[in-house]
């Protein structure tokens, strides 16, 4: 009898077992969960001692000496200031996109929430995601460090898209070499291109050694870390590599997503910084703040005039100033590899993308006020987080753009 039953396990019960198995597992999970959160030993406040609790500590010392030309422009905007909540504006906004300014935006939007009670949900999914989200109208605004191409602008479902600059930042070569934590390595565009192309594979390669006399470079293999998602940071970096290396331009090119010849991919600036931090003998490229916050090595890059420049606000601002004359009316502009002795060559604007004609008036009002606040009052947060404030002429161009946004056919910005 026993034998018979064992032999007659029906296939239904076998399938049922399959699910029942998981049930059993889930049941036991309850036992595993005896470290119930509420009963956990009196948890001390999260140990933050390893972390800079105030951002200034995280900023490179040189940034304190940011060039005077970086003085932001709010004074010029006169009486227009966002001071609190506004009747008739939407209370929530959704944005998605670039991770490059995510650290800055999370600060902005947290402060803005305190000021106006508007909840701006920003998810840093990458510039490619920001462009896609605004094109598909799946978010209220997008964010990118890679200006949209003409083709992409044409694809957008909701009409004309505006690029409103919010800040300037630097993409830095960041590395993790045990023993050389405090050494500032020097790189030229060609060596960086070689590393990411896979033609330079060892840290003690003569090409790297040539620029770093006196540094004892390890013999280890280089692990290059790049972005796995569509990324404005990648665009800025590959844009730079394309402009300094013919081989890079021919083999890989510049885009938010390129066909990387080698290396490890990390998702987001956070992901790349995380990978570099986790992986000895690795090198990656991230927005300045991500390298500084993580106490990772930051390389000096040789600029167009032959100087090795440390990435800092002054260098970025110098790049913006050098490129100022070339800024197109729609503010889409690349500022990599600009002239100037102090210019940091891998610099970029970062933009918020918004539709010029928005259908939802309440959201349009909320968004224009947010953008106005962001390009004026909020600029004071930039320096502390390693981003350069916008030059005055860019701010005034941005003002015109913000004022041109309409909600349901009417001008959206209430002027306060």
């Amino acid at each position, binding site marked *: 009898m026993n034998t018979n039953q064992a032999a007659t396990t029906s296939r239904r019960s076998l399938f049922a077992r399959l699910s029942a198995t998981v049930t059993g*597992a*889930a049941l036991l999970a309850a036992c595993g969960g005896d470290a119930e959160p509420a009963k956990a030993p009196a948890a001390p406040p999260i140990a933050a001692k390893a972390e800079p609790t105030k951002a200034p500590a995280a900023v490179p010392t040189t940034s304190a000496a940011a060039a005077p030309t970086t003085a932001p422009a709010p004074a010029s905007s006169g009486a227009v200031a966002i001071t609190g909540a506004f009747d008739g504006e939407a209370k929530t906004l959704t944005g998605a996109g670039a991770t490059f300014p995510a650290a800055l935006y999370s600060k902005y939007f947290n402060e803005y929430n305190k000021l106006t009670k508007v909840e701006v949900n920003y998810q840093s999914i990458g510039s490619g995601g920001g462009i896609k989200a605004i094109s598909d109208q799946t978010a209220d605004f997008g964010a990118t460090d890679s200006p949209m191409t003409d083709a992409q602008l044409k694809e957008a479902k909701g009409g004309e898209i505006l690029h409103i600059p919010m800040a300037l930042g630097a993409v830095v070569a960041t590395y993790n070499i045990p023993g050389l934590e405090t050494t500032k390595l020097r790189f030229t565009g060609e060596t960086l291109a070689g590393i990411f192309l896979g033609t330079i594979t060892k840290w003690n390669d003569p090409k790297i050694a040539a620029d770093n006399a006196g540094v004892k470079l390890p013999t280890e293999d280089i692990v290059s870390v790049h972005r796995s998602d569509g990324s404005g940071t990648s665009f800025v970096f590959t844009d730079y590599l394309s402009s300094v290396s013919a081989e890079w331009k021919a083999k890989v090119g510049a885009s938010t997503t390129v066909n990387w010849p080698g290396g490890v*991919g*990390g998702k987001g600036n956070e992901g790349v910084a995380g990978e570099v931090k986790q992986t000895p003998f690795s090198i990656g490229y991230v927005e300045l703040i991500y390298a500084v916050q993580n106490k990772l090595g930051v390389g000096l890059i040789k600029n167009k005039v032959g100087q090795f420049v440390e990435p800092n606000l002054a260098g970025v601002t110098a790049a913006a100033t050098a490129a100022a004359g070339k800024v197109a009316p729609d503010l889409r502009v690349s500022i990599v590899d600009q002239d100037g002795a102090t210019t940091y060559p891998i610099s970029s604007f970062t933009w918020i993308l918004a539709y010029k004609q928005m259908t939802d008036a309440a959201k349009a009002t909320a968004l224009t006020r947010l953008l106005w606040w962001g390009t004026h009052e909020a600029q004071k947060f930039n320096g502390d987080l390693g981003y350069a404030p916008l030059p005055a002429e860019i701010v005034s161009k941005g003002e015109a753009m913000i004022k041109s946004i309409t909600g349901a056919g009417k001008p959206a910005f209430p002027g306060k």
Partner: protein
Amino acid sequence: MTTRNAEDEIAPPASWDVQGSPKFARSSGVGADDVFKWLVYTTAFAVPAVLVALFVLLVIDAWPALARFGLGFVTSSNWDNVKQQFGTLPYIYGTVVTSLLALLIATPVGVGAAIFVTEYAPRPLRVPVSFTIELLAAIPSIIFGLWGFFALTPIMRSTVEPFMKSVVGPLPVIGGLFQGPSVGKDLFTGGVILSIMILPTIVSISREVLLAVPTMQREGMLALGATRWEAIREAVIPYARVGIAGAAILGLARALGETMAVTMVIGNSSRKITGTLLTPGYTMASAIANQFTEADNPLYFSAIVGVAALLLVVSAIVNIAARLMIWQISRGGAEGGNRG
């Protein structure tokens, strides 16, 4: 040996109808029975509808890329947004390699654990051991990913991979699997994390299959003077072979579609295909997770949806194969123990 189908005893016929039901008994009105029936029918047909909608919608969105690249979509290894060329071979390769590696690790361990539970373990240990292993199935993928990201990859990079390189690396042929720098985030680690994730599937199904092996099989061998292991090897495993293979393939099906855990440890890089396991890669699922929301031009988007459609088809085929095999062993069991 005559056997009867267990279903005959406990289960109703495939359908039961109340044809003879007297009308006066329907106290709740004439329509109630029909209304309920149609509600049930609607929900039942919602399931195939979802499946069809899923497939159709994916194929429609994937069509531009499929039409443009044709067979090249699966045979080209060039995935290049700049040049608008999309070939998914590296993703297929990554999926196949990590899944097979996972099977290679998880099948012996899983079947071993199932044999332990059914054949060796002292009675009080049986339920706790199988429950504990199957509990793994309740842990969300993202937590495997978290653990893999912070706990597994450093060990892989600093210890396991250098060890494999020094021990297996110099060997001919298979040594080629362990070449290059130890990154920690690579196909090898992806396979290892997957092997842990499919372990509960393999253990639970193997256990069921082994329990379905008639006791007579073992008794016969033991009576002939075989050791316990010989009885298992000669009488139990051959009998359960097809079912165990089904278990492994069901594990494979799970491995193919795993996303978050793999994404966090595989390195996410579509570098060209090389023989070594110590290279960052992509699986189809991790490529979708990384690139789907980012596909900022129509052809790129279409290509990514094409990867999803491909993954859907492949996992469907593998699932069907696995279920057929398990179904066969179950039915085989019902027919009586005349194998092996």
